[in-house]
């Protein structure tokens, strides 16, 4: 039982990271109907932004304090929001009216470009770098369970961001416009919504969430390197599909589900070697039996 609860807590922490990334995939899919392959690389850039920000901020705020960690996360999110908007503006916007295959190939190209450019010696290099501990490391003992301060941090931040996102999407003008575009783009444009601005905003929002996820992922990982985004990115994508792509609560639910399942599989010796295959197996099963995902609506194709 203890083992079960311990794994559940670990899984929830990992799952909230996946959920944050998955929200970016699903939001972009909602407005543009394509999968932003470069999203996982934006997450990686978030981790690197924090890596370079931490020593700079140490001059101003005490390092390894909650305040400096918060400042680093906010700044990394802002940087990634700008990067996300730039990617959309430079690579995806010119292809808005082109076949979907062209956009898909471009997205793969952008992802490869970020990865290979960052791996080059002149930028980050391919070597793994140790990531600073942004918050005080402590293990809390709760009824025989040990909970790390990183895990508590990621759970609190994710809960806060989910609430914030829900408020933005449901209550603000931007959020209403986002939902309008996802519902019917031409009609939204006719109602005076500036499509380009909303799409840009969506990319910014998704990329900021990815950056936060990147920082927390880096804190759990042994270190950071330019390809660190690929595996969590694929899992988060799976999470978005499992929850029903385009559906925000679905993405959060899917993320937590994948995180928990993966952690449990990692704890079982026979399955642990196949850890990388598990998310894909779930993805394939979901796509075969319920392609619209757990919370998604089935779409009827009109000609």
């Amino acid at each position, binding site marked *: 039982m203890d083992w079960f609860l311990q794994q559940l807590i670990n899984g929830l922490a990992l799952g909230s990271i996946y959920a944050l990334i998955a929200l970016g995939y699903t939001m972009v899919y909602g407005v543009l109907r394509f*999968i932003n392959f470069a999203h996982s690389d934006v997450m990686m850039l978030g981790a690197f932004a924090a890596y370079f920000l931490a020593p700079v901020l140490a001059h101003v705020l005490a390092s390894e304090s909650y305040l400096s960690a918060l400042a680093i996360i906010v700044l990394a999110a802002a940087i990634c929001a700008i990067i996300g908007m730039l990617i959309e503006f430079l690579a995806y916007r010119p292809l808005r009216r082109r076949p979907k295959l062209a*956009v898909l190939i471009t997205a793969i190209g952008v992802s490869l*470009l970020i990865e290979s450019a960052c791996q080059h010696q002149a930028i980050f290099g391919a070597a793994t770098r140790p990531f600073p501990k942004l918050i005080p490391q402590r293990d809390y003992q709760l009824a025989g369970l040990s909970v790390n301060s990183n895990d508590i941090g990621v759970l609190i931040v994710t809960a806060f961001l989910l609430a914030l996102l829900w408020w933005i999407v449901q209550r603000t003008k931007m959020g209403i416009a986002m939902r309008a575009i996802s519902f019917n783009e031409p009609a939204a444009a006719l109602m005076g919504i500036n499509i380009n601005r909303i799409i840009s905003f969506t990319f910014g929002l998704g990329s900021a969430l990815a950056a936060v996820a990147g920082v927390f992922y880096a804190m759990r990982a042994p270190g950071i390197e330019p390809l660190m985004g690929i595996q969590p990115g*694929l899992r988060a*994508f799976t999470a978005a599909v499992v929850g029903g792509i385009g559906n925000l609560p679905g993405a959060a639910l899917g993320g937590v589900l994948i995180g928990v399942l993966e952690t449990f599989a990692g704890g079982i010796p026979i399955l642990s070697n196949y850890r990388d295959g598990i998310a894909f197996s779930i993805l394939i099963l979901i796509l075969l039996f319920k*392609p619209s995902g757990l919370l998604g609506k089935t779409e009827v194709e009109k*000609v």
Partner: protein
Amino acid sequence: MNARNSKKWLLAALGAALVISYFSAQFNRYYLGVAIDVGINIILAVSLNLINGHTGQFSLGHAGFMAVGGFTAAKFTLLTAPAFFPLSLLIGGLMAALAGLLVGVPSLRLRGDYLAIVTLGFGEIIRVIFQNSQAFGAATGLTGIPDLTTLFWTFGTAAITVYVVTSLVNSTYGRGFICVRDDEVAAAAIGISPTRYKVTAFVVGAFFAGVAGALYAHHKTVMQPDGFNFIRSIDIVVMVILGGMGRTTGVIIAAVVLTVLPEFLREFASYRMILYSLLIIGLMLARPEGLFTIRKRTNAGA
């Protein structure tokens, strides 16, 4: 490439491969190696072009099929030491085709982005399986595979691949591939089963990828699961995109150029993937029909 002349082309190419391979003992070993790489890449690119280009199904798992073909063929050669080398090639191809069928039947109900990511996933799963199976040497892979790949077998297979893919696409049956690419709903409406065509393209493409993998295994004499990752698939995809999706001649030229050029630019190897990705983005923005395509097809040009 014209359908009517394709048999003549095939015979000419086979003849040329035979003549060249007769003199191959006199060639520099390094150039010989590069030439075989060119042939293998032509097979991979032309077979992927059937899936990605002609049928319009964006697959990112070609390296996985290559791995299946390579590993089974190498294991077969190591176990039985067959007297006739093409038997290994055939077995590699058939196993890859079987893998293509197993992957294709469930995943080809999906489209576009989903298909891309599922094929990517299958490619990775195949790699993880090889990495964990003791029969195939686990992470170290297979070593000491006899060096059986010759210039003749490579270019002979390449010629057959080009012939089969071209004749298939240009046949009455093969028009279905293009039909599925251009409009799946319309294809279904006139009685062409998109899934059947997609699976056919997948199985044929996987077969040749498997043969290419078998040639590769008997050329490099070692097989390591790590060599068949996502980046290997992307290499092949870049050849297809650069050559122009659905244009066999362009794809062959792209395969040759992208194999030979990196050999000359070894000191810039760290820029290779950066250049590839910029090429992909640039081509999609400016010239989606590919770099090595001179003449646009009038029929079926999308």
